[in-house]
């Protein structure tokens, strides 16, 4: 039963434990269950020779409500294990997997990492990650241009979250589609590689508007590509009313990796703090 309105809609993948839809929907999700709250006025609509009564029903349902419910469910899985989930997005070839390889090397001692890899085809990326001694699940989407919450949920069945601190979800390389689908992540990180040009946030506002961190990657190429202006790149992010930090990294020469890892550890500590406080709150109640 939905606690918000008493309907009997439940997500399909509810475990045996009693659970509503997950966290109370935020304002953006309110009225998202597709109920019919108020029928509109009936009118008649000529169709062929008959006159059939056509009624207009007001719905106001978030079309991606089903995805968002599974995403909330994924987030509960993560929170139950205290796993910070990071959704890593960029265009293809911006260096997501190389960054992960570097990151795993740098953080192995501090945090236990796992990776979900999304690609249209091949298990190449998961192999690269497993070679670093870290569990990696490959999702091959066939031809889908993004990961969605259902795919990530299915992948979670093959991943032991116990003992993991940090889960990277490397989304399908694409600056458009992944932005529309909540996966249950806590943090969105978007890479912008130097060869792509500094105006990408202006060209793909939906993706960059959602970023909690923008990583300028391949900064070792800045000398060779003077037309890329990091200040302009940051300005085009700010024009999207996004105050997210901007960091420079190079997976090739390792510069900026330390700062990025520190940011991750800070995010993870802050997240653990939030989870602990929420749990203490539950106990008190």
């Amino acid at each position: 039963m939905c606690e918000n309105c008493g309907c009997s809609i439940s997500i399909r993948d509810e475990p045996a434990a009693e659970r509503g839809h997950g966290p109370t929907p935020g304002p953006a999700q309110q009225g998202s269950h597709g109920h019919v709250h108020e029928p509109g006025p009936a009118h008649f609509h000529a169709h062929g020779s008959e006159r059939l009564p056509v009624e207009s029903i007001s719905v106001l349902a978030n079309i991606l409500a089903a995805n968002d419910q599974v995403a909330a469910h994924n987030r509960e899985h993560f929170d139950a294990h205290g796993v910070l989930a990071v959704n890593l997005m960029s265009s293809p070839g911006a260096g997501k997997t190389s960054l992960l390889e570097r990151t795993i090397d740098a953080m192995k001692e501090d945090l236990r990492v796992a990776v979900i890899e999304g690609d249209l085809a091949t298990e190449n990326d998961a192999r690269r990650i497993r070679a670093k001694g870290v569990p990696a699940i490959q999702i091959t989407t066939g031809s889908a241009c993004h990961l969605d919450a259902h795919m990530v949920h299915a992948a979670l069945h093959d991943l032991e979250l116990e003992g993991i601190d940090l889960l990277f979800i490397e989304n399908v390389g694409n600056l458009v589609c992944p932005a529309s689908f909540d996966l249950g992540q806590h943090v969105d990180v978007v890479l912008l590689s130097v060869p792509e040009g500094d105006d990408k946030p202006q060209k793909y506002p939906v993706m960059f508007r959602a970023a909690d961190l923008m990583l300028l990657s391949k900064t070792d190429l800045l000398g060779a590509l003077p037309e890329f202006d990091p200040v302009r790149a940051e300005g085009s992010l700010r024009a999207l009313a996004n105050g997210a930090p901007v960091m420079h990294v190079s997976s090739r020469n390792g510069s900026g990796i330390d700062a990025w890892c520190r940011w991750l550890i800070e995010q993870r500590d802050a997240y653990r703090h939030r989870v602990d406080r929420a749990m203490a709150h539950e106990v008190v109640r």
Partner: protein
Amino acid sequence: MNADEGPLPRETPREPNGIQDIAQAHLVDAQAATPETPIHLIIEKYLDRSPRFPELHRIEDDEALGLLDQRGEREADRTAVEHLKALIQGRKPREAPCGVHAGALIGQQHVADSEDEDTGHGNAIGEGPHGGLTVPRADRNVSRYYSERPARGASGSLPPMHELSVCQALIDEIARVARSQDAERVTSVVVRVGPLAGIDPALLESAYALARVGTVAADAELVLEESGVRIRCPECGTQAEVECNQLECPSCHHWRTQVIAGDELVLASVALVRREEPMIHV
């Protein structure tokens, strides 16, 4: 294994055009069976076709079993073929541990078996220090979770646009409203989409033409209400309509504004015809 023998997917209906084009792509797909891409992998893909797209080819169970019988001789494929046959014969949705139905291919890739053995990566699965994959080796070629309905974004060889996934979700919502209203059919739907929803209205329309086929919304017109982006400035209180990539306040140029409209993707209303009450003759 010869790609040219055995029944191939039968002809698809001649209309409409968009679907026909996609169906053609599927036929080419089936003919592409080679020792590297054995027939069972192709059949697996066809089995899970969407009931929403009846025009797209969906192989019949009998036909699939016949093909698998012919092609089962190859030693390397035997386990996978047997498993697939068992699945078809049972035809029960394979449930994931907590009951999810998803269509994504998880933790495995359709690599030719020979290559698989060369690299030995299959054997390495499960050996990660934190447990790694738990998919048993023999299951790897058939680890698709069979779904009653297509999982979003995992719809086989449909064109790579997320508008189609969104449309499938839209059709689900419409069907839910139609059921709750005991509707016979839906005549039109109104969808409100903002520039920051990340949805291209033109693509949404063409995806909708595909997604509605065979559903209660088969004849329903899609009416798109495109809104603009509106922001509110916390500094000076201005509310204004702005460009989707220039969200700063037009009055005071403060950049930390709040978007108050323009990121919505909402099914606003559904026009439908209710089922007729049965006539009572006295």
